[in-house]
């Protein structure tokens, strides 16, 4: 009896010694969307990840978009950064320059080897400018976003315009907007305010006319006839009263809501707007057409939005965190997130599959090839976050309100940009 017990005890001890220590690594993950559908999708992704990696636990904290800059900067100064978080694509360079991010190259190499995937090939061309800095990868894309031209075919017909020929250039856009402004409807929902929405629309104009934010010497490159031309065409839409009279002070979401309420005949917006119209059961849903964003004299350029996942340098669980990042931004996990969230995945191969082959996505996916960053063709700069907030918008607002002439506004814009760059 005693021998049996002894043997049993020894076996048990041996078994315990042989089994690997099930120490759990905790990965803190800051997620920025507060929508129920998104949160559910992220929870699914986490569950799927934890199944495949039982020794890693991902703790998701919901940090709303509107707070992210404040929380991140506070955490940067006072401590408390997460292991992984989402991040606006335009501020990746900012935090990388501050030394707060960790490069992902080693983990990517391991991932590529393991899955036979090619990380770099699947990143949208515009995103490379945002996430590949100083020769290294600092983020893995989740979402990519661009704007297209939504227009009301019924209103086109009523104004005597051909509903199958939406405006192709900014000049045509301005002319059409004027004709469409009647009977309580404004031709275009074009923003002239200090809101982000303004620069997201206006960048198609200045890039389209061939203007660039930064010269090759790194200084402000806006002081050119091309930029002034773009500025004139853009603000003419307000001056000709083809958009809402409060456009210089309205929020972006007020414009979006306005289109959904039928107040605007045209608007530049994201694929999510179509989903909203469907949810609204908008009476004019069948009359909504989507076309490419207007082109300038030199090219057609779309807004490039989106966000990636980043690895913070303060993290003490980098390897586990990197595994989570690469898992969530590829394959089934990303497909699920993108489908439930209604966005286009930041992965080229994935975006060419269902459901992004159905209306309204194809136009957006095709336009992504022409989507560029604000500072194209220069590389992303750390100060982009600061410049994007209100510098360009101030110029647009001033000219639209007639407070400054195009030349004055452009000169002041360049002074402001150079001041920030010189700090």
């Amino acid at each position, binding site marked *: 009896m005693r021998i049996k017990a002894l043997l049993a005890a020894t076996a048990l001890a041996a078994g315990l010694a042989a089994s690997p220590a099930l120490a759990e690594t905790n990965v803190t993950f800051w997620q920025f969307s*507060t929508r129920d559908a998104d949160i559910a999708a992220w929870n699914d992704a986490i569950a799927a990840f934890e199944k495949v990696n039982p020794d890693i636990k991902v703790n998701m904290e919901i940090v709303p978009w509107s707070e992210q800059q404040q929380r991140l900067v506070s955490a940067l100064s006072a401590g*408390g950064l997460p292991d992984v978080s989402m991040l606006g694509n335009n501020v990746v360079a900012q935090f990388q320059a501050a030394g707060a991010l960790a490069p992902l190259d080693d983990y990517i190499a391991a991932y590529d080897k393991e899955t036979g995937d090619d990380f770099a090939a699947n990143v949208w061309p515009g995103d490379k400018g945002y996430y590949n800095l100083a020769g290294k990868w600092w983020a893995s894309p989740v979402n990519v976003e661009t704007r297209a031209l939504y227009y009301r075919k019924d209103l086109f017909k009523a104004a005597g315009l051909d509903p199958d020929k939406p405006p192709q250039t900014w000049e045509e856009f301005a002319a059409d907007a004027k004709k469409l402004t009647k009977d309580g409807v404004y031709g275009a929902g074009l923003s002239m305010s200090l809101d982000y929405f303004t620069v997201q629309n206006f960048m198609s104009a200045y890039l389209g006319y061939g203007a660039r934010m930064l010269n090759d010497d790194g200084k402000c490159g806006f002081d050119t006839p091309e930029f002034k031309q773009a500025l004139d065409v853009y603000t003419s839409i307000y001056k000709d009263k083809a958009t809402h009279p409060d456009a210089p002070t309205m929020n972006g979401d007020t414009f979006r809501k306005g289109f959904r309420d039928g107040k605007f005949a045209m608007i530049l917006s994201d694929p999510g707007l179509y989903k909203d119209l469907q949810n609204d059961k908008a009476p004019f849903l069948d009359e909504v057409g989507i076309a490419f964003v207007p082109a300038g004299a030199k090219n057609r350029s779309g807004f490039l939005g989106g966000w990636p996942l980043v690895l913070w340098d303060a993290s003490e669980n980098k390897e586990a965190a990197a595994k989570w990042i690469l898992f969530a931004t590829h394959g089934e996990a990303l497909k699920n997130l993108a489908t439930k969230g209604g966005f286009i995945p930041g992965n080229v191969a994935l975006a060419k599959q269902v459901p992004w082959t159905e209306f309204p996505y194809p136009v957006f996916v095709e336009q992504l090839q022409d989507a560029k960053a604000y500072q194209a063709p220069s590389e992303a700069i750390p100060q982009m976050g600061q410049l994007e907030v209100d510098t360009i918008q101030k110029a647009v607002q001033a000219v639209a309100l007639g407070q400054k002439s195009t030349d004055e506004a452009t000169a002041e814009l360049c002074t402001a940009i150079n001041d920030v760059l010189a700090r």
Partner: protein
Amino acid sequence: MRHRSPTRELALDATTIVVIFLLLVPILWVFVASVRPETDITGGGLIPTRFTFEHYAAILAKKPFLIALKNSLIVGIAVAVVTTALAMPAAYALSRFAFGGRNFFALLILGTQMLPSLAVLVPLVVIIRQIGLTNTLTALIFTHLALGMPIAVWMLKGYIDAIPKELEEAALIDGCGRLGAMWRIVVPLIRPAIIAVGTFAFVLSWGEYLMALALILKSDVKTLPLALQGLFDPYSFSWGQVMAGGTIIALPAILLFLIFRRQLVGGLLAGGVKG
């Protein structure tokens, strides 16, 4: 005010109603918007034709919102009570005693008010992290004390100054200690002011956003302003829900005040300097 002719009273009542209505027009709009269907709010004109409670249902269904409501109540009440409890003796001391460093302390307390939250943010967060109290309501309560205390002290001091010292001297001769005199004579006399000050502290805490943002991350400890921010998705937020959220945030403060406003009116009849 001493002759009460009914017509005069009626006229004054009517004027009050009109004035209050005019003052509260924006609030009324917020409340009305919260019970209209989403598309009516911006597109449907001024006079509501359809009503719905879907926004309230949606918000109250969100557990985080209810939890945030509870947290804000706890923090707000605690802050109101502690602020008043600390401010009352301090104000009394500043008013009634002449002691070394009196002016220094008075200005020190007032000066607390003059530092912007932003300047105070980082060092406070660092200290609280060191103590290990991040994500606790306790840390938030302590931080919020700074919001209302200076005003509480100065306001109460002002009201106490207005009370003649003879009243307490009578009680002192009777054998009360100074604390007893304060408690028995002064406090009842300035009850309306105490209520006002407590309300002030409560409201400041109730709506405080920046420190809550810096100190609290976990959903189960969030306060209402943080929860409200969560409703603002940059791409599609519901105006109706935001308005409903705002109403839900505003109402409890009013209800609490309604409960206590009896004190505001009642205090003086009982302890007034009358016969």
